């Protein structure tokens, strides 16, 4: 099993998490990691070591909220969901990201 797993580029983890939670879904930490992995077509791998501090950061900022619930296996888990402030933040980060990445790809193409 040697599928290449790239780490998430620095500075974009928050945005990726927010985007993953965006459609009004509630997920716990493991599900978030899996969802990122799958929706990036098995390319982006979230380091567990950075996922939890990131989630705490988002909680502090008030961009996500956490509610304790039960998993299918009937274990206690904290389910994260996007708040209104988080949604606003996501939009502004996506806009900024598009602008930057578009600029970068234009540079790469002209080269």
């Amino acid at each position, binding site marked *: 099993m040697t599928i290449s797993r790239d780490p998430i580029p620095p500075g974009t983890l928050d945005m990726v998490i927010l985007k993953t939670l965006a459609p009004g879904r509630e997920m716990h930490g493991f599900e978030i990691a899996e969802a990122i992995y799958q929706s990036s077509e098995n390319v982006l791998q979230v*380091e567990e*070591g950075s996922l939890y501090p990131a989630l*705490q950061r988002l909680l*502090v900022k008030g961009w996500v909220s956490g509610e304790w619930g039960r998993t299918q296996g009937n274990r206690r888990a904290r389910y994260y969901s996007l708040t209104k402030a988080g949604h606003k933040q996501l939009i502004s980060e996506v806009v900024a990201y598009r602008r930057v990445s578009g600029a970068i790809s234009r540079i790469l193409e002209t080269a």
Partner: protein
Amino acid sequence: MTLGELWRRCRFVLNRDRFGAELEEEMQLHADLRAEQVRRENAASATTLRAMRPKFGNAALLKEESRDVWSIQWLEESVRDMAFAIRQMRKAPGFTAVAIVSLALGIGANTAIFTMIQSTLLRPIPVKDAGELRLLTWRSEESRRGWMAPSFGYRSPTYGWMYEHLPTADGAYIHAEFSPPFYRNFLRYNLVFESLFGFKELGRVTALVDGGAEPLNAFLVSGDFYRGVDVSPVLGRAIGPGDDVNPEAASVAVISYEYWTRRFGRSPSALGKTISLNGVPVTIIGVNPEYFTGIVPGGHFEIWAPLHLLPSAYGQSLFDDASWRIQIMGRLRPDVSDARALSALDLIFQQQLDGNYLAAPHGELLKDPAKRPHLMLADGSRGVDYVTDHYGRMLFAVFALAGLVLTIACANVANLLLARCAARQREIALRLALGAGRGRIARQLLAEGLPLAAIAGAAGVIMGYFARNSVPALLAAPWRSNPFESAFDGRVLLVSVVITFATAVLFSLAPAWQSLRVDVNDALKDASRGSAGLSKLRMGGALVVLQVGFSLALVAGAGMCVKTFTNLRALPLGVRPEGVLLFTLEPPPLRYPDSRIGPLLTKVQGAMEAIPGVQSATFADGGGGFYIGANSGQPEITYASHAAALAVGSRFFETMGIRIVYGRAISQGDARNGPSAVVVNREFARHFFHRDNPVGLTFTASDGTGGSAVARDSGVTQFRIVGVCDDWHVDWLRDPIKPAVYTAALRNPRAGRANLKLRIGGNSARVALQLREAVRSIDPELAVTDVRTLTAEIENSLSQERLMASLATVFGAIALVLASIGIYGVMAYAVARRTNEIGIRIALGARPQRVVWTVLRQTFTLVLCGVAVGVPAILGLSPVLDRALAPTYRESFAYGLKPNDPIIIAVAVLSLGMVTLLAGFLPARRAAQVDPMVALRHD
């Protein structure tokens, strides 16, 4: 950081343990799910399981990182620092107790004094938007300073009778009252004030309520007053413009809430009740709200009546055109600036001046633009503020002294902390070496100071709360209402908290600054003895020098206050105050005009002497003055020819215990016809006749109104001296003895207030009860007021001096104790640092006396430096303090000595030197007792 974020962070700090557990559970779940996933994908094997686990990396570190996201780092660190500080404090209870007690004393004194300043001097009058109010005053160049005690009215040759006037520094006068033509024209032509209203503090009137007589304080207001101050009564209606047209319409009154409660039990039936004020019937039409105590801070007024009531109620003509008695206030229109309002009103004022006074005596003064009076607008937010005039400077001076005490306490604690901090030098150096920022270390030392200051602050606030009435109690006269309040409120608390924090910063500053200069290398290499100790001592030494200097200034200030007080107390009074009981009668002029007052006083005198225990009784009027022409010459109207005059009843000198030196006293016979007999004091004899015994000689007297006729004794211009009495202070102890004339009161009695004086042999409280009864039996409509002993009155006249003497002594004593603690701390520390060296010296044969001397010499140097700082401080500060404390109309507080009295300074230096050298002797003796063996082993 947004507010919500701060809130979430705080919640985290409070629930830290639960947070950790939850995070752990979450991560465990993640690990388990991942493991299951791997197991599903591959065949489960122990190796992969192990391979998966490190993905989390160091679980503990991860948890720490996740937690750090939440925490408010500096806050938590500071909390930890404070906890550390509290542990340290418990380890050194002696140090902690000294620090807390000295700071608490300082904070407590400041809190108590600020409480009084806040509620007595800073609070605006209780009306809506008091800041919009302006008080009208005017300034004249006509200087009559020193002619009479300024509380009396005087007759200006130009303008007529003036009452309220304050001298300015440049010799002019500020007047706060206006004559009726000015008042009417201001009101008529005013365009710049929303409302202008007049008022007059009437003082005491005798009220007859339900058949009983009682003295009440009355305040007269114009019809626009209530609209102007924007106050509506809680019951009934306010005095309106229709009530203030003429004396007939003016027979209404509003009563204060306090009086309504006290007299009528808040019964609505008080409305419509008719009471009589000085014999004039008035109907109660309203009750003021509880909060509205008036526009004179510290004043207590029960009755509010229209201005037009005055002529009938007091027998005085408020609306006489030559009588300046109406005060005016106004609420400025919001769109008008002060300058515009002033120029508009000044125009009216100037026109009126020209119209009325160009032709008057000295009217040519008006032609000189520099000398012309002009109108001024004063801030009205404090109303008519006598309290600040009388006590403001003194209270702020006391506040400054208390601040000085707190500064000394701060220096003391800083010093103690510094010595302790030096012992922790290695610890601090180690922290620095391990990478702690210097800012972090400074913050730590500050955080360590906070619990100390907080405990001291709490203790100080509690002390201040309980001591808040001590200053008013020292100033107040027990027989009348006093202007002092000390309400403990949020603002006081806020100021105390600010003071406490400032204290913490101040005393933590020295150790913090010191720690920033630590050289890590030196400090770590240096064991415990090294040379760094010297620089520590230098800073501690500087603080001690400062402490000694400040303490010296305080002790010298206390010396000045105490000496002033004892000087005044030691003055020969000229009377025997023991056993003299005084009270005041206010016979209403309508009921007791000039013709009826004589028989009344004679009757009262007789009734008093019939009371068992009363040896003699007499009376005197309020006093006044004459201009004297010796040997029947024409009196000159100058200060040098002015004498105080008192109209007295028979047995006056006997009752007061004033010795008759030559001739005889005023007798009952002097009231009858014949040449007008007077007694003069010795100063009068010296001043006007240049001899000891002028009995039998005559002089002429004038009251200064122009002619030589004496208003009190009309028709008689000549007086014959029948006796000479000892000098005594008629008015104020600080005043130099003035020439004085005693006339027979019954010869030409005047309606109005009478002061009764009784010499008693027995219990004054019992006599006080009986005298009220006796007066009531003569006339139930007469009110007895201000019953007090002469001793109490004299004591009260010195209340400011007594307050300063006691406060300054307490402050000076605290400063002395603090200075000696400071010296002791620094020297004990120095000895501890030098234990090694001292041990070597002793081992090498130094005699104990020599060791003691070495240490004492250092103390001596410190004290000497302190004196070198302190003496110039005294020389600079005591004249300032002296002027700040000076009573109204005086330049100096010190009495019988100069503010920089060399003896006081010498005594202060000597006492401070002795106390501090004693404090330095204890560590010196300990040094001499060092055991060389122990000392050499000592690291």
